[in-house]
């Protein structure tokens, strides 16, 4: 079902944990749908992401996308971090099964939510960043296509 990369990131998730007094924290998803991701960012004065940690409640893909997303933003500046889309996460993982694509969206959203928190705390505006939806599943509805 999952690629080797996904399995690797699931089995050995990078950057699991918390950051005390983080520059920004974002939590997305909801327990109802079975995925919650929380991202902690430690951002320095040059707007470089010095450290990043995550915690995730969810399936294998949810864990792997969180892990990969943290890897992709680590050491980047916030502008670069904004470029880490769900597509980028998926590509870095060599793809996801169709039913799991929403996990990668969640990872993107979690990064954005943490950046939003950072921006709010510091009273700055990040280009292209909008307030995170509280539930990214809301507008998803599966309709089988034959």
């Amino acid at each position: 079902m999952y690629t080797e990369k996904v399995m690797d990131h699931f089995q050995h998730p990078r950057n699991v944990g918390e950051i005390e007094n983080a520059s920004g924290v974002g939590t997305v998803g909801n327990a109802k749908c079975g995925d919650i991701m929380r991202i902690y960012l430690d951002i320095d004065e040059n707007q470089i992401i010095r450290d990043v940690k995550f915690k995730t409640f969810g399936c294998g893909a949810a864990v792997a996308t969180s892990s990969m997303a943290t890897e992709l933003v680590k050491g980047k500046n916030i502008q670069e971090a904004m470029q880490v889309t769900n597509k980028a996460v998926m590509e870095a993982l060599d793809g996801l099964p169709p039913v799991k694509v929403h996990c990668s969206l969640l990872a993107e959203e979690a990064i954005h939510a943490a950046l939003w928190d950072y921006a709010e705390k510091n009273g700055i505006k990040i280009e292209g960043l909008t307030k995170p939806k509280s539930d990214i599943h809301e507008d998803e509805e599966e309709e089988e296509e034959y």
Partner: protein
Amino acid sequence: MEKLIYLDNAATTKTAPEVVEAMLPYFTEHFGNPSSVYGFAAANKEVITKQRDIIAGVLGAKNNEIYFTAGGTESDNWALIATAEAYASKGKHIITSKIEHHAVLHTCEYLEKRGYEVTYLDVDENGLVRPEDVEAAIRPDTILISIMFANNEIGSIQPIQEIGKIARAHGVLFHTDAVQAFAQIPINVDECCIDMLSASGHKLNGPKGIGFLYIRKGVKIRSFIHGGAQERKRRAGTENVPGIVGLGKAVELAAASMEERAGKESGLRDYLIGRIEAEIPYCRLNGDREKRLPNNVNFSFQFIEGESLLIMLDMKGICASSGSACTSGSLDPSHVLLAIGLPHEIAHGSLRMTLGADTTKEDLDYTVDCLKEIVAQLRSMSPLYEDFVKKQEKNK
């Protein structure tokens, strides 16, 4: 993979070697079509009759009340749809429960789109249908009650005899999906007033793609699959002779060993339940503790999600299943777990382990050891657990 501990016998079972051996001659040797005139093939008709005898014997039914199908799902579809069609002039109301298998529930939804009305009964927190609810739901236009014999996820064994008697007293047909119960626990169709009963081969160490529907003599339902005159004109299609032979053999073996197996398995089951409850915090046993299939264990582990758990168990060589949405590709967790009142996030963290004849105490010890470790690991990376711990610390 080195070690393989298969704890998913409710999903499917290994076909018993004796079953395969019984089937083999019917592929390349006695391959004839049982409807043929010549002796070479016509003999297969008697072979089929023999299997029917075996199955009828186990249920206390008559030979000609057993009809072979392609599996439990087809049997369920047949029972519901053909009854709906045959008795439409009497009424269009059907009673079932919220914890039925999708083979029943989705067929009910299909019938709802075609003008039928379905009452989905609630169950109690242990996953049991209340007979009084069944009786209260009966209306003059009720034509069918379909309640499963035992639930496939949480193993709860329903009060089928009471329900059957109520159905009989009200002159309503009674179907039971016994896919998980047949040949695992004793069933007598007369004692339970069962008019139709579904079963599937691959749940009892028989082959996949074969099952049967018991139809009591006198129930006037017609075919669901139309065509040739097979199965007394009620189920068309060239008979799956090897499959039928395999099913018969599997039923024979399962029935002969039922009591002993049930004793052994329920002992192991309770051992597994005991160790998990003693050693893993924040867990909940789903399903009734007593009225429970001998091989079913189902737990919810708070703060973690089922699919992750399954993959981690898989990495340890342990095969199990979960009611998590993620395992089915849908967004909602198991309708059964929601029906017994679990909140979504608890339902997502469920784990079903279903034992088989080969399961040993050592297997279960190894499983619990792994499980402890994995649950702890997943909790350590769960934001829900983090929140819970922080809240507890605050409250101290």
